[in-house]
């Protein structure tokens, strides 16, 4: 499960696009979230459910969620400096934050995502 829903453009192009996207999203207050999970463990499933729920409830329409299975793509774990699983990374807006666990503590996540303040 969990595919990276990204295009397969050239790295340089990709970086540029990412940057442009990032700019656009920052200005629009869009969230880019990546959830790294390790296969279909109970923790993974709970984390995916919980994150989806939080996003739908609090960030509807202004978020993009990628789910990465590090079993299938271990290289992303290295690139993202992921140590624990599951890990949710808030890539945008800055600052970068990492949440680890099954994402069951909604309040903490909302605080960490700065969702509360934004409201």
């Amino acid at each position, binding site marked *: 499960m969990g595919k990276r829903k990204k295009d397969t453009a050239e790295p340089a192009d990709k970086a540029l696009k990412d940057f442009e996207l990032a700019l656009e999203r920052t200005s629009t207050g869009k969230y880019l979230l990546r959830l790294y999970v390790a296969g279909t463990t109970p923790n993974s499933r709970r984390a995916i459910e919980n994150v989806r729920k939080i996003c739908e409830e609090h960030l509807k329409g202004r978020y993009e969620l990628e789910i990465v299975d590090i079993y299938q793509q271990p290289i992303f774990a290295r690139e993202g400096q992921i*140590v624990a699983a599951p890990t949710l990374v808030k890539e945008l807006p800055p600052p970068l934050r990492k*949440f*680890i666990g099954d994402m069951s503590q909604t309040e903490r996540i909302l605080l960490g995502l700065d969702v509360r303040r934004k409201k």
Partner: protein
Amino acid sequence: MGVTGRAKRGKTEGPILKKCSTGIKGLDEITGGGLPQGRPTLVCGGTGCGKTLLAMEFLLRGALNYGEPGVFMSFEEKPDELVQNYASLGFDLEGLVAQHRLVLEYVYIERSEIEETGEYDLEALFIRLGHAIDSIGAKRVVLDTVEALFSGFSNESILRAELRRLFRFLKSKGVTAIITGEQGERTLTRYGLEEYVADCVIFLNHTVSDQIATRHLRIIKYRGSSHGTNEYPFLIDQQGFSVMPITSLGLDHPAFTERISTGIPRLDTMLGGEGYFRGSSILVSGTAGTGKSSMAAHFVDGACSRGERCLYFAFEESQNQIIRNMRSIGIDLEQWVKKGLLRFHNTRPSLYGLEMHLVALHKEVERFDPAVVVVDPISNLVTAAAPKEVKAMLSRLIDYLKLKRITAFCTDLTSAGGGILEQTEVGVSSLMDAWLLLQNIEGSGERNRGLYILKARGIAHSNQIREFFLTDRGIALRDVYVGPGGVLTGTARIAQEARDAAASTLHRQEIERKQRELERKKKTVDAQIIALKTEYELEREELQQAVAQERLRDDVVMKESMEMARARQADAVPTTAGGKQGRGGRKR
């Protein structure tokens, strides 16, 4: 002692633990072959004691010497920092990474970025590690240091469970791993990693005593294997990590019958005509200025002339100083340095601890591979440590050199005026095969050098004292004067010799005189004989003449009487006898 011996015995008893050679000098010897293969080893110690270096060298040696790729998972240093740090030790990490012999996996953990929200595990770390191992088929893994996890995550119960799983994971991967850990207050590691790594624990420390810092390594635990239990000194230098397991050496070094010259012909003669045994250890002791270094220089010169390589450890003088000084006695050491046959290693004894000196000596010997090693002087090392330790160190050094078939030439400065000359400062004489004593012999207002051979194991050596000269053509040995006046040297000897010469001249003259007298007497007698003979001759002649005259007269008388008779026409001719009887009266 006997580490390897015990390990060997273990081999006969059944399947034993396979060991993974670290390639680190000395460590394999202490551990009897290396770290437990396929198992994790904990290396712990205080800050700056060399944990990371040991771990990294284990990987690099594996990759370079044993064809075993390795993964270095760093929790502290970034790859580019590691590359820089090890470039100074001559390792090209980037090159190894490019050749797929090494992976530098940097794990970044920043507590402030992490929010814990429920249950988690460290599966991502495992996946990364597993991926890194699989990507190059790694056989060796280093985790430096997993303790960083404790500062990154607050849920210790999860962490501990995950660590246990991590070590199981490493074992299941079949990799030989080193996990480093910082020393704790009362425990080996701050977070008790030793609980998880049960197979092998190595402890490093860094102690300072008498302002001299020494690094030590100790194997606290090695399950399923015997190991050296002592604290072993180790050295970190330009060549990396080296441990000295010298105490594991036994007394089983080979003995050689080949002899090598001392460089001084007369001394060779004293030593049964051939000099020292190759591979033996020679001690020259003496008070200051007795010519110990000069003897060493002769020995070195002799060895280099034979094309042998010499390593000269000088603890007192610089290379240039030695070369200059030896030139004054006609020995040109510089030519051998230029030819690469002679190498000086000059250090101050107080530069570092004794063990470190030993390590340095070993390294130099390993690198230069000499046939002859000179330590000048060993007694100076006392300044670096207590005499007992010096003796222990020297016995190890000598053992080591014997094992390597290197002839060791040590000089020892004995304190002047002590009176007990036949005692070395550090009490190492019992370790030595040959012991020469240079002694100042005082007398008649001067000091002279005397040389004795106190012992020379296995060599029929001279028991004579020789006078020892430093000339501009090197060392010369002379017999001392041994006579009724005792042992004399120097000008006293020369004076005595002169006196002896005078006495013998006198004696010779006396004999000559007596001979001449005899000659004279003989001549006198001869002259007398001649004189007597002449007298006799004269007398005889006279008498004979008288007799002849008488006869003549007789004849004349006879003739006259016959004439007379004829004239008187006597009928009877007078007989001669009658004529004679009447001759006297008739003649006159």
